[in-house]
């Protein structure tokens, strides 16, 4: 991977992949749904939930029509997503890479939100929100985040609620764009059989100059979590659960990230004694997924999956977390091999490599350190601090409630 910075401050991460046909470029903005407000020299702004995601939708609008279409005309497939700590715009193509890159960079550095576009997009986003309201896993996830982080923006759904998006107007959209869509807050990540110098040149030429300082992010006082359990009823048959803990360690580092991923998988991953036991008892059929959720003002280890006995399973997971604090971990060597192999396989494709680099950029850690750590990590040094708080969220079938 080649790392460069343009004169106006954009970080460029380029992964040359000789012999590959597909090429991808991604522009990552360090602004997502976890920012509740910010201050500039002249004013302070509260950000309604869903604002970063609303901007993501609007970036594709232009007086000439939807810009996704203009990428398609140049043989590229463009898309975007909003996460807690970032918004990313990307395209993949086989041909016309540099022309598409020029379009991507121009698009990200051009603000043209009109009232007509805002109202049209509001209808589409409302349908997206409705889609997520039917998604048991998504609902379960945010219910848990509300337990762990009451009052923090990270516990709001990324697209916001219908009520939230109705409060979003041109003023707040413009203010957020102007505050966060700045060269020094943006990275361009590219992969494929491509030329590094030409990329940096294209990025620099089509972006704006550095303007002023980045705003100060409002730090919100967190409410003390009280609910350790929450449940919902939806139209499903097998219950779904999320269980997790707030970590005590607040530092964001590559080492902490790798260690936490290994520890989470040791606790309840597919090789873990806990999974084996729950499988034998027939409370679960498939391995749990896990996630290390880390941002500016939050850090949590989360497990999720289906279970026929969700309360009991959640309790077992939370107990296992406590046990691990006391007794450490088994199977860590196999887990390190597994995660190392998975990372190699994930980064094999042009499509798979940009995302983990984007994650590292938004957390300000070095992706190459992550790769190196899997070769050098000392598994005897793995230890989990006592969590600040633990909670579980369960979604059960509404049909079972009616019966």
């Amino acid at each position, binding site marked *: 991977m080649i790392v460069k910075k343009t004169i106006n401050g954009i970080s460029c991460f380029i992964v040359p992949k000789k012999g*590959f*046909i*597909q090429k991808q470029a991604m522009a990552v903005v360090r602004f997502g749904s976890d920012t509740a407000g910010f201050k500039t020299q002249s004013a302070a702004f509260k950000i309604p939930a869903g604002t970063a995601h609303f901007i993501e939708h609007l970036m594709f609008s232009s007086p000439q029509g939807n810009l996704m279409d203009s990428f398609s005309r140049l043989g590229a497939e463009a898309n975007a997503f909003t996460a807690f700590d970032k918004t990313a715009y990307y395209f993949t193509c086989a041909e016309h890479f540099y022309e598409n890159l020029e379009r991507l960079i121009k698009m990200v550095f051009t603000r043209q939100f009109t009232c007509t576009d805002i109202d049209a997009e509001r209808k589409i986003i409302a349908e997206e929100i409705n889609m997520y309201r039917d998604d048991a896993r998504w609902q379960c996830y945010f219910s848990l985040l509300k337990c762990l982080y009451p009052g923090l923006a990270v516990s709001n759904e990324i697209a916001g609620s219908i009520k939230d998006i109705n409060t979003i107007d041109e003023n707040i959209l413009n203010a957020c764009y102007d505050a966060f869509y700045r060269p020094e807050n943006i990275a361009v990540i590219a992969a494929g059989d491509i030329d590094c110098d030409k990329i940096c040149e294209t990025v620099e030429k089509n972006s704006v100059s550095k303007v002023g300082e980045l705003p100060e992010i409002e730090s919100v006082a967190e409410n003390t979590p009280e609910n350790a359990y929450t449940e919902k009823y939806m139209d499903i048959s097998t219950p779904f659960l999320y269980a997790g803990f707030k970590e005590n360690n607040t530092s964001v580092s590559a080492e902490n990230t790798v260690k936490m991923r290994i520890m989470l998988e040791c606790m309840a991953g597919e090789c873990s004694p806990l*999974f084996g036991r729950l499988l034998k008892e027939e409370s679960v*059929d498939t391995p749990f997924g896990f996630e290390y959720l880390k941002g500016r003002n939050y850090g949590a280890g989360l497990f999720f999956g289906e279970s026929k006995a969700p309360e009991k399973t959640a309790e077992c997971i939370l107990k296992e977390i406590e046990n691990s604090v006391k007794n450490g971990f088994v199977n860590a060597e196999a887990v390190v091999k597994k995660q*190392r*192999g*998975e990372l190699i*396989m994930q980064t*094999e494709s042009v499509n798979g490599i940009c995302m983990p680099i984007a994650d590292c950029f938004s957390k300000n850690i070095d992706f190459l350190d992550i790769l190196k750590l899997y070769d050098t990590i000392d598994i005897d040094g793995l230890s989990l601090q006592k969590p600040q708080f633990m909670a579980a969220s369960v979604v059960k079938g509404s049909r079972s409630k009616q019966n």
Partner: protein
Amino acid sequence: MEVIRDRVNLYIDENKKFKGFYLCICLHQPLNENTVTKNRLLSLVLSSGCEMYKTQTELNTALAECDGAQLSIQSVKKGDRIILQFLIAAPKGSEEEQFRILSEIMNHPYLKADDFAISRKKHLKNIIENKIADKKNYAYDRCVELMFEKTGFGIDGDGILRDLCGIRDLYGYYRQVYENSQTDVFILGDINRERAQELLKKYFPALKTNKLSRSDAKAAEFKSVVERSQGKQAKLCIGIDMGKGSRFEKIIFNELFGVGPSSRLFRSVREQNGLCYYISSKYLSLANAVIVQAGIDEENFEKTVDIVKSRLNDPPTDDEIKNAKASVTDTLKIMGDYPTALMDFYLTQGIFDDGVTVETAAEKINAVDKLSLEPKISVVYLLGGEEN
């Protein structure tokens, strides 16, 4: 991709650019009420362990030790076939170990022990009953089922709940699948042909292929069906019978009709009318059908169907055809970067059995100048929310 038709259909891609090594074995059976549920159950039982790795965690640990090898055993529906697909992939360097682990699973299964099958039966029951949790896919499966009722093309690949309980002698069924299937083997990565053949012979000496014929799908006459769930958003699926014409023309039609943001459906239904967040279409080449999927507010049901109908019947412009051809040929080129996409392509073409390769498919796409198709709606299916 080199194809060697011997005791099995062997597809080899000697390719140094991949960091991984991929071994995939596919056993084809006709999809019908007798095979579908057993096949799906087999995919779960075989994923759970074997004689050597008696529990799932033992098997998972062996895979982890093999440089994090990823194993996937699935029962894949393709047209009116059900394919038991075994895929093992890992970073290069442990090729023989991948062969060995897969041979333990396939050649020394732990099927005689009933307790395995009993717990997996409960798992499969949950999978089938819980399909409603994913309403988008549930609606898609129902639409295909209604379109091809009572034939293999219409049977849900996850199996039939009422048949699950009565399944006996799963081992006997597995032996029969192992011995009587059309068998395709895919080997991709940094390995030469001789070594690949040697490893295949060493670890799978008894594997062989049989010929399986292909039948044509027949779509139902027009019907419109509304069903209810407790969802907030209605899921619309429209099944289109593609009628006569070459499959390459149909690929181009599908591309311009419903693939991506420049497609007719995305532009008309989402961008011009704001009726949905997602809308797209998918071409099922073996079933000769295009399926449209959208998530909408139920009150826009008729309006959305009307737009889809009108866009279906508009003749494609030269510009649309040109862009769709470019997009499809790019997709074909990019396929060479993705081992699993390549395997899936050749798995499908192997069923057509007309020798089409990635390269000749691109030529055939480029040779199309105009579309002479007569697509016809067969099924309009709506999974609505609760009735007020």
